[in-house]
């Protein structure tokens, strides 16, 4: 039948089109930037491009990425969850506290993730029921969560002496456990966003909430999904972080939401909603982490690192968002 021939051509056409699209997409640009950066840094400092350095950078930044993946999903739905840093901290603290109280590891971990989802539910209430702007609502929740963490846990972090707890410090088949976590998360979230009907509708809600209502999409339901997933993944990231540090840290992940948001925007998310690429975010996280790592290795003083990271953030976003036009 002619149909099948058309199908094959369609598939070939689709692939070729996809490749062409990639070449001009922000994600690709980001990838190129990453490769160039790694090359430059490797040339500048020989210890940079070693396997051990790269894998340890990857492991540390995995916790950021896991949370950032959630942020990206929410951003695609037009919702911005600035509470992720706080959620990471609180989930990690819950995880550690439960474990120390004798709860078996998997259950303690689940408890941490559930706490994350719980914070997500609070965010959902504020955004969908009280109709508060998501940035303000989650910022408020961030403050409150940080305040609670500080109040309950003080400034001291408590070591959790247990090999089981520090599972994230181990390697599995040559890769650190957190990196495996990232791999799983990126596959699942990217598939969800790009290849499932729900993911597509989520992006529609982010791109045009009014239009979404007109085509009978339940905007609130998708926003709820977005916020709960974002907080849940932040919780997961927080658990892995707690495991790596091996401690209950009420001051954990301070300021992390800025890095997460930066990575998401670099990866293609936009404040106008509807856009976001988990793969882009992954590369951005790694880019930022490598950048930071490289600058540290170059023995740059922290103030220069601050200057560099601030400048790079703005410049990178400026370049990256060319296709979509940006802020007017």
């Amino acid at each position, binding site marked *: 039948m002619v149909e099948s021939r058309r199908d094959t051509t369609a598939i070939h056409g689709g692939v070729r089109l996809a490749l062409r699209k990639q070449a001009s997409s922000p994600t690709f640009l980001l990838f190129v930037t990453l490769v160039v950066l790694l090359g430059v840094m490797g040339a500048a400092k020989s210890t940079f491009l070693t396997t051990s350095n790269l894998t340890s950078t990857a492991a540390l930044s995995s916790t950021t990425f896991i949370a950032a993946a959630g942020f990206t999903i929410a951003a695609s739905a037009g919702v911005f969850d600035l509470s992720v840093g706080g959620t990471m901290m609180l989930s990690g603290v819950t995880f550690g506290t439960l474990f120390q109280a004798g709860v078996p590891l998997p259950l303690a971990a689940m408890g941490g993730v559930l706490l994350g989802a719980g914070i997500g539910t609070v965010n959902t209430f504020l955004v969908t029921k*009280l109709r508060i702007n998501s940035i303000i609502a989650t910022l408020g929740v961030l403050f409150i969560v940080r305040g609670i963490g500080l109040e309950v846990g003080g400034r001291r972090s408590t070591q959790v002496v247990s090999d089981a707890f520090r599972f994230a410090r181990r390697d599995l088949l040559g890769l650190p456990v957190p990196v495996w976590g990232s791999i799983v998360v990126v596959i699942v979230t990217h598939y969800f966003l790009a290849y499932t009907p729900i993911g597509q509708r989520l992006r529609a809600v982010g791109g045009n909430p009014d239009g979404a209502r007109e085509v009978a999409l339940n905007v609130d339901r998708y926003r709820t999904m977005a916020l709960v997933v974002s907080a849940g993944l932040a919780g997961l990231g927080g658990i892995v972080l707690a495991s790596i540090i091996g401690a209950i840290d009420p001051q954990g992940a301070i300021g992390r939401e800025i890095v997460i948001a930066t990575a998401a925007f670099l990866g293609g998310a936009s404040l106008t909603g509807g856009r976001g690429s988990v793969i882009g975010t992954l590369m951005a996280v790694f880019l930022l982490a490598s950048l930071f790592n490289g600058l540290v290795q170059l023995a740059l003083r922290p103030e220069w690192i601050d200057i560099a990271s601030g400048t790079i953030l703005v410049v990178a976003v*400026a370049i990256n968002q060319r296709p979509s036009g940006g*802020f007017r």
Partner: protein
Amino acid sequence: MTAPPAEHTEATRTRSSPKRAKSDPTRRIYALLVFIVLEMSIFALFVPDFWTQRNLVSTGRLNAVVAIVAIGVTFGLISGAIDISVGAVIALSGVVGGQLLGHGFPAPLAALGTVAAGTLAGLTNGFFVTRFRVHPLIVTIGMLSVARGLAFVLADGRSVIISDDFFNVFQSKWFGVPLPVLLAAVAFLVGHYVLAWTHFGRYTYAMGGNDVAARAVALPVDRLRTYYLGLSGGLAGLGGWVLASAVGASVPSAARGTELVVITAVLLGGVGFSGGSGNLLGTFLGVVLIGTMVNGMALQGLGPSHRLIVLGLALILPLALEARKLEGFSWRTSAT
């Protein structure tokens, strides 16, 4: 068979998504006034040392910087450009002033230098927003890091004691009122006049309310936005001078986290997050409410953790309470 009685669905708003009716700023101001009176009464009655001249003077002095900076941020936010870099700009300006003094420049010039440094930072923000079309939130987050880093670089990581009498003028009192408070009061009066009575000020509302329309009527939106961000930076610079002056030292790590307090106060005062509404009276009340709240809590021995919680509530509660005031609004989610 008749259709069942109407169930209000969210999609009933045929025009567009259920937008918050631009919250009546007057309502917000009344609410703030009520809260301030309530709060101060409670503190005066139950918190020892609150209602003393010493405490009020000290609080006033502390919050004057926040107040001055909030004026600039208000202009920016109403026009649709959030400026979250102010804390770092305060510190940077203070450092610039201290360095100028240290290198032998006369004090008035050093003072001017602080304001200039802040303005330059603000204009840089404006440049990136208008030329490269990067969202102000992102630009100013970047500036937050850059300015902080620059402050440390210029100060070589060290705080510098300032002993110049002119520069440290903000340690004095005029007519019994600490000078920073007087300056803040003057700044608010001038700011209010500019915002409400001049073209420059009123254009913020036009731009914040409907950017496309503003451009369509040939408002120089980009130039104006740059100026507003410049103003925001300039007032942060002024705040930097006041702070360094009052403390008697230029400290590169000064004002950390101040931007969050400022933004909270401005939002609390009724300026919407996407701009187009609000006024300086609201901002002023927002600063007073948060300032006295923090002060009262500190006197009661409540620490930074409680401060954070209060800040978070200050952001959320006003909006939560106002949510119920939308008319004809229903909590039902849209069709299906």
